[in-house]
């Protein structure tokens, strides 16, 4: 499969990602934030596809957009949002927060401008597009232990969430 109009799609998708990121942190209504986040996640899945990571893109859609975000929407519907919308949206330390985030951003800019030699100028190594299988082999081979730990983590998270959210067990 030959990629078509790579540059255009990159700018389009990353622009969408960043726009949705801005919307997430500025919207008053959490439902709108969540919708923006979903849009961003889907755009990011597109970026993954452009990076020849189709499996990650699929997992991103099925797990993030289809699973985690539905959970978010559920919870937003359960908690009373009407009151929180009328309140002050930003906390008292917002100025300090912005400053430190700006400092972090400046750090990034510094790293990427000064240290651009660290990164290859182009996508030097053309990875073959069909790498889903290799990812699977690595998951169940080299990273077997981590995989099992991840499953344990999910189990703990399930039990923890149930214990937290249920009133009477």
């Amino acid at each position, binding site marked *: *499969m*030959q990629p*078509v109009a790579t540059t255009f799609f990159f700018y389009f998708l990353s622009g969408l990602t960043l726009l949705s990121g801005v919307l997430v942190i500025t919207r008053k*209504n959490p*439902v*709108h934030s969540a*919708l923006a986040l*979903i849009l961003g996640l889907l755009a990011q899945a597109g970026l993954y596809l452009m990076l020849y990571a*189709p*499996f990650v*893109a*699929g*997992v991103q*859609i*099925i797990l993030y*957009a*289809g*699973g985690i*975000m*539905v959970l978010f*929407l*559920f919870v937003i*519907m359960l908690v009373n949002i009407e009151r929180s919308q009328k309140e002050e949206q930003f906390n008292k330390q917002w100025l300090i927060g912005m400053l430190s985030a700006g400092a972090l951003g400046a750090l990034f800019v510094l790293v990427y401008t000064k240290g651009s030699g660290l990164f290859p100028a182009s996508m030097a190594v053309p990875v073959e*597009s*069909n790498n*889903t*299988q290799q990812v699977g082999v690595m998951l169940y081979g080299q990273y077997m232990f981590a995989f099992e730990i991840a499953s344990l983590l999910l189990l703990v998270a399930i039990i923890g969430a149930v214990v937290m959210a249920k009133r009477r067990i």
Partner: protein
Amino acid sequence: MLDYITSYLGMNTTPGQAGNVLWALIYILIVFAGVSVAVMAMNWLERKALAHFQIRLGPMRVGPHGLLQPIADAVKLLTKEDIIPDEADRLVFWIAPLIILCASFTVYIVIPFGPTHAVTDLNIGILFMLGVSSLSVLGVVMAGWASNSHYPLIGSLRSSAQMISYEVAMGMAVVSAILMTSLNKSGTGTLSMIGIVEAQQQQQIWFLFKFFPLGFIAFAVFAIAMVAETNRAPFDLPEAESELTAGFHTEYSGLRWSLFMLGEYAAMIAVSSIAVTLWLGGWLRPFPNTLTGPAWDLVFSLFPGFTFLGLALIAFIGVIRMPKHPYFRIQTMGLAGFAAVLGLIGLILFIPPVRDRIQDIFWFTAKVGVFMYLYIWYRATFPRYRFDQLMKVGWKVLLPIAIGVLILTAILGVVL
């Protein structure tokens, strides 16, 4: 230009793989139009078949035997007033049906109607399909929440819980079919939709019959879960008419409501396509390996033409049986015209080049059609599950069965 087209027709990859944007666009348009027409036809067929299950006639007035009823419905829905409740969240209310529609139509990108008849062949095809079709939950949740009303909210909560629960069992059943694709010499499986069908061709068996009854059980789990996934009877709780009036789309009307319906039917066809691709050999004709040879190839390639001729014959019998009253003259002529069109299509399908290209699509469509009929049949037969029973079936029955089948398939795959 003509050369360009004919040269394409000789190709044996999908337009997406060939990187041919023009052809991909044309395919997308064809698929989109085809699915929309199929939805309209399905609408008519459902009303007719359901009516005959229930000793009624169904639509009879608009066109001969109500053939034009879907068009009349579409016009009615398009011209209806579009009501948005005052208290609704307008933006979300507006987007929700679009999300459902997009989710169910995007899936068609990877559905292989034939070895080359797909928009593209992603190598994560089946994962993509499950992922994108799971996005329609979002639309349901948003529709219920944005309506700002009790019944839609309960309906959407029910619906999303149901869809998420059944996705798990569905995914497990799908995985056991994908495992079967790796049972070849190289030992590598595939997630690509075309690859899955080709694996069935190589192994000379539909996965439905592979490791009998394991493949069949996985298929059955999928077939039940997909009915729940598309919110159809007997799992149509979210739109349980008698309980929640119309579930999550109670507050919708006119065009927006029709988008929900379009999405629902498109999703039905899409999940049926997954089932056909995974277990019923996709576009493969029956007995591709036992009844081989040019003679059998010819016999099977004549099926599409004869099917259409048969339909034309049925329509023609309808023409003869029309009452001989001047009042029915236009209807009779319309039905005769319809019969003629069907017959003409049938004749076109006998032309050798067309015959060869169209065969795959025909078998695929025929298999999907069986599922569509099953949907109608379920709806006419079963009462509706209660919510807790539905959850019980999903988590306590289907999921353990699916996981058991998955484990057994894996063991058998290693042993054999």
